[in-house]
């Protein structure tokens, strides 16, 4: 069975500074990887996904993530954050051939003006 670990439950960052949100996964088979964002009082929205091909994936709102198979990681990065990026971020994995998503516990990103 797959699992996801998000080591940081909260990450405070100054506005316009870079940010990295960490995600590690565990699976015995090939996986698809996702980052979802949950803005206050809103539903989950897909930021980006890795299915195959290039290990560097670009998503919406200037976010990107890199799939590292040897380190079983899929860290999310943004070079310069804005107040509007304040939200909860969830990393998720699904095993190829098994569509259900397994989520991490989330990282709350707080932007400091």
């Amino acid at each position, binding site marked *: 069975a797959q699992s996801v670990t998000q080591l940081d439950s909260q990450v405070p960052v100054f506005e316009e500074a870079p940010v990295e949100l960490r995600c590690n996964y565990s699976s015995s088979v090939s996986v698809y990887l996702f980052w979802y964002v949950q803005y206050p009082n809103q*539903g989950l929205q897909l930021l980006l996904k890795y299915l195959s091909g290039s290990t560097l994936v670009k998503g919406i709102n200037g976010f990107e993530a890199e799939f590292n198979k040897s380190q079983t990681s899929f860290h999310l990065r943004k070079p310069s954050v804005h107040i509007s990026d304040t939200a909860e971020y969830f990393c998720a994995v699904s095993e190829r051939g098994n*569509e*259900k998503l397994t*989520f991490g516990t*989330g990282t709350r990103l707080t932007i400091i003006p």
Partner: protein
Amino acid sequence: GAGVSQTPSNKVTEKGKYVELRCDPISGHTALYWYRQSLGQGPEFLIYFQGTGAADDSGLPNDRFFAVRPEGSVSTLKIQRTERGDSAVYLCASSLTRTNEQFFGPGTRLTVL
């Protein structure tokens, strides 16, 4: 176009009562998923439908939980003899096919007193 909708948005019930939670997926989406998100946690998979049939119900916690999708569109999650531990946000997601992006609804917040 319309996204995934869920009703009610909030449901308060008493321990031991029966509840039904409804999900209207995006039109044309054949795959439908239910997840449960407890406070401070990521969403946890409950059940997955492909068309009318439950393709994977391995996440249902016990036999008090049941879900149906009789016409391959709207789905209802049914919880019998509710317990305080059932309190959570119940999320529904749909996708065009089983390998496509899952679009999430806003959730139903269930509170069992």
